[in-house]
């Protein structure tokens, strides 16, 4: 099966910038189709020759990436509707790997924070539940 990847996707592959599943797809195709390796080598040669690509510049400078604060607000549900829609688009459809990583990190922080909250509540409960039982007697 011959895979056709857009040039922008191959450029992003060279920069390790595609979403993980797309990276894996290209790696698989590279093993199956030696011609693809030459296509990628040609892209490297174009870069070495000094040619620019809009997608690579856009990605490298992160020209449309939401800030980390905006990603945090997105998770808290406090972004405007249109900005929240854009964040979803940028992370999921445009597949921005750096923003995906930031979002995953923020979510992990949130989960850790939840654990801390749960542990504190458990401590309050355990230290006070005895008093509750005494009142019921």
């Amino acid at each position, binding site marked *: 099966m011959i895979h056709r990847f*857009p*040039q*922008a*996707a191959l450029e*992003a592959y*060279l*920069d*390790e*910038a595609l*979403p*993980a599943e797309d*990276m894996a797809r290209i*790696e698989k195709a*590279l*093993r199956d189709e030696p011609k693809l*390796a*030459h296509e*990628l*080598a*040609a892209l*490297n*040669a174009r870069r*070495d020759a*000094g*040619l*620019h*690509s*809009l*997608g690579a*510049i*856009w*990605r*490298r*400078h*992160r*020209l*449309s*990436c*939401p*800030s*980390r604060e905006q990603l945090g607000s997105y998770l808290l549900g406090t972004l405007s509707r*249109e900005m929240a*829609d*854009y964040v979803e*688009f*940028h992370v999921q*459809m*445009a*597949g921005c*790997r*750096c923003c*995906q*990583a*930031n979002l*995953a*990190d923020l979510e*992990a*922080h949130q989960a850790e924070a939840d654990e801390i909250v749960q542990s504190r509540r458990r401590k309050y409960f355990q230290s006070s539940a005895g008093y509750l039982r005494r009142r019921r007697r």
Partner: protein
Amino acid sequence: MPASSQADKLLVQRVRSGDEEAWNELIARFEGRLLAFVESRTRQRARAEDVVQETFIGFLTSLPNYDSRRSLEGYLFSIAAHKLTDQLRREGRRPTLPLSPGTSSGASSWEPRGRDRPASSILRSGERRHLEENALAAAIREQIVQWQRRGDWEKVRAAELLFVRGWANRDVAARLGISEQTVANHKFEFIAKLRSAVRRQGLPEEVFPELYADSPDAGRQDDDR
């Protein structure tokens, strides 16, 4: 996404002076996102942690060359991407590429920047390329900000899918639920703005092939918004 913030610049300045507390703070601030970036590919926490560790070491060793006007986060992600590429290649997951089309030097490993070119050549062409790239980045940023201010999110989305993902007009149209002609019009507008920036700044047209690949695939048509 702004370039390096003032807080980042100060932090890096402290790290440069050997302040261990600042280094600890930098690690704490960035390790989570770097780990998420790497782990999405390695799928193994221990290996991902090794790559992040190498990333931080790489940052310190490359610190004399780090331009603090550049985004600190972007710089760290780029080091992580290189270290991750090396790791995946060692594991045999990332196939080695021939150095140039028509050759098949399996023995040579691929690096994003041509390592075997003479340093003077890289430095000279690197400077020129850097200027061209920054000029075009500024023009793209200006257009995106303008669209965002006007609430033209559809245009931002269309341009991102067309140029960052490299999707065809019809695929962008289908995903965004708009006509192909509308996508073509957005593309036309974007390219025209960038061509104008290239002209205004006296940049060489031939180094931006996408902008001059063919005549824009549509003029402004009836359904232009």
